[in-house]
């Protein structure tokens, strides 16, 4: 095994950074929902793909800028997220059952996507698609750069919101102990609906970013589950910055593994890292 050149390694690390940003972006809403709402929302991945397909369709039929489609898509998914969480609240679904409930939602969305757009691969055509520029010796693709910037902005924005605003404090309080938070005047039901909607809207943003640089197929919904879950768990449930940081660690380690060995070895680093982290975490008794 010969070590590849520094440029190739750097280029690999860069592409790992970009794909890691997408892991983090998809994981952002998933982790907030899991940590703060105690809902393990598998449908988050279906939302992401449904949004990606909608973006693809809007661009294909009207020719508008993909990022502008968010104006229509984000509110739509906000409403979907609110609706789904209303069900979860109404029927008092436990965290594990929420996983199954949202698996059912995923199956329905997957079937709908396949019925509308077929099982074939679809690729968004836009002026971004091939755009890239050179930074020193490295190529920087524009769609991936957009994803990174969006992921950074949203993660830091939400982090600041949760940490410093009254709204954020109320959300965190309600997540820790809903009845006590309610006793202190936090309208927990409304807040959690707001958060669930936001998480779904985040899935939509992630979906639009996904459509910028990846081909779409209904079966791909499940391809992201493992690695994004890993990013969310590594980053910490309910954390806004964690998934992005962990996503980037996973993405870069995968890309570097691919560069020095074969692409098919990629998962081993991130998942071994995850297992080690889980086993060696300090125990709080």
């Amino acid at each position: 095994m010969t070590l590849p050149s520094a440029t190739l390694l750097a280029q690999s690390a860069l592409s790992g950074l970009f794909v890691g940003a997408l892991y983090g972006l998809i994981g952002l809403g998933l982790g907030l929902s899991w940590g703060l709402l105690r809902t393990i929302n598998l449908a988050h991945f279906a939302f992401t793909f449904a949004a990606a397909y909608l973006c693809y369709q809007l661009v294909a039929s009207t020719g508008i800028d993909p990022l502008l489609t968010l104006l229509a898509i984000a509110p739509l998914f906000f409403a979907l997220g609110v609706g789904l969480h209303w069900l979860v609240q109404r029927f008092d679904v436990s965290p594990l059952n929420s996983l199954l409930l949202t698996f059912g939602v995923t199956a329905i969305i997957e079937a709908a996507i396949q019925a509308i757009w077929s099982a074939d691969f679809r690729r968004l055509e836009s002026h971004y698609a091939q755009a890239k520029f050179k930074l020193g010796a490295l190529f920087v693709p524009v769609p991936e750069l957009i994803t990174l910037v969006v992921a950074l902005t949203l993660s830091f924005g939400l982090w600041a919101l949760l940490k410093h605003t009254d709204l954020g404090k109320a959300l965190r309080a309600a997540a820790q102990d809903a009845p006590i938070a309610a006793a202190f005047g936090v309208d927990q039901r409304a807040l959690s609906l707001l958060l669930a909607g936001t998480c779904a809207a985040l899935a939509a943003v992630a979906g639009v970013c996904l459509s910028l640089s990846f081909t779409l197929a209904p079966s791909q919904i499940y391809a992201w589950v493992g690695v994004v879950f890993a990013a969310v768990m590594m980053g910490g449930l309910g954390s806004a910055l964690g998934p992005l940081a962990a996503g980037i660690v996973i993405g870069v380690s995968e890309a570097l593994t691919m560069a020095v060995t074969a692409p098919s070895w990629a998962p081993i680093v991130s998942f071994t890292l995850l297992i080690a982290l889980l086993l060696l975490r300090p125990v709080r008794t």
Partner: protein
Amino acid sequence: MKRSVIVALLAGFALLAGVPWLRLPAFYESILYLVLHWVLLATSWNILSGYSGYFSFGHGAFFGAGIYTTAVLAGKFDWPFLATLPVSAAVATALGVALGAVVFRARSVRGELFALLTLAVTFVLATIVLNTPIDGGPGIYLSAVPVPHLAPTQPGTFYLLALVGATGALLIAYVVQQSRLGVGLFAIHDDEDAAEVMGVPTFRYKLAALAISCALAGLAGGVHALFISYVTTGEVFSINVPLTVILMSVLGGTRHWAGPAVGATVITALLYAFTKGDLALAGKATTGAVLIASILFMPQGILPRLLSRRPALAPGTAPAVVPSADAAAPSPASPSPTAAHGTTLLRASAVGKSFFGVQALAGVDIEIRRGEILGLIGPNGSGKSTFINVVSGHFPATTGQIQFEGREIARLAAHRIAHAGIARTYQIPRPFAHLSVRDNVAAAAMFGGAALSSPKARQEADHWLAFAGLADKADALPVALNLHQRKFLELARALASRPRLVLLDEVLCGLNPSEIDDAVALIRRIRDAGTTVVFVEHVMRAVMALSDRLVVLNHGQLLAVGPAADVMQRPDVVAAYLGTAHAAEGH
């Protein structure tokens, strides 16, 4: 254990074993195979995950280990197919036991973290299989492997193999649920730490359940390898396997041995009711909708809903309840309680415990004498509860020795300490939420020092429930009890193991004065029956009324020991409790 269930299962097997000779179209035999295949897989998953609450997302790894063992042995080394099946089960079991031996030792890997870890193991295994000669990338073809002629047709043979596996899995699931292992796993499901302290060997039980689960999954994989006849890592180790078995089990009901089988049958039938043409999509969507509806309207699963009552731990009606608390004379805990009265029962020497550098106990020496009631008092944070936690094994001691009846117990696992004859209550009651009040107490009788069989344990439970005045609540779930009753349930649970030493952690806290009087009388009766009592308490009226001797702790150190009246006169004790100014005034 009902013989009728086992007979019914075997009769069902005999009946269904004739199906291949009906000469159904191959299509139907394949569907029936798939139903049984998923019954086997879902049931195997449930034995660990449903019973103990350790939700595994790694079932694909164990299933995949079975698939690849058969694929490699039969496809690459030309082993006869049937000979590969035991090896498949063995390889999957070895993988599971190796994983469990590491993971189950980590106290932090529970709940969703366990789910994630097992999922990660699946992906690591898939990567290794893909990149080594086990698979190497192109997948393994098994089309040249001869299918044994167990039935007139090939699908019939697979059907028969799956039928054997599914029947075996159901039998095992039933026997496990009815056995000590099952009761222990259900206790682990609700509160693992409390289960361990009560005497459940949690590590061993989890490992045993995982091993059974893996062996069955490996067997299912071995059969399935030849059924699909072409295996690839992408298909085998996908997230679909764990998601599907979880789905089926939860749909059917994870707390019942037959729940996963019901769920597997419903889902497989649904999926294949729509196999023709464009209906496949409708089938997928319908499955999703059914799942949503069942989670919303039957969160406990189909089977418990149909049976409309919780499955009991063991069959049989409750024995006659002893009339009242006062009439119930507790049976002696040890043969001759008075014989050794006053001798040392437990000696703690220089016992210390620190948490991340904070010293909760700084080397205390405490002697507990047979037959006494020892009050353990001190200001908040003085180390009283820590002492109880260390003696009961809830936390291991950092330093020092503890000798109970001459035997060193400071380094023993908590369940061994329970077996040795020490029981405890928790300050905040920790009943097993999904077990009835009677089963809560019966579990203690089964796993504690008494180590009774299941029917005897239930009689014992009724005895102690009557003693604690909870006889009329025996069939209720703990959630239906108020705080007072839950504290008494804790007591009944501790006593049901017939301990020689019982540690009571603030049983009186939160009770009103008349309830306290009841409790004081109850504690006296416990001692009169021969059990030595150590109790941590803040209610001074009760402390003075009950204690033969007092031990006062302050800042993790021993401040005073002696008869209650003497100790409470000492200025340093008064100072510790009320501050130095008051201590000075008193003199």
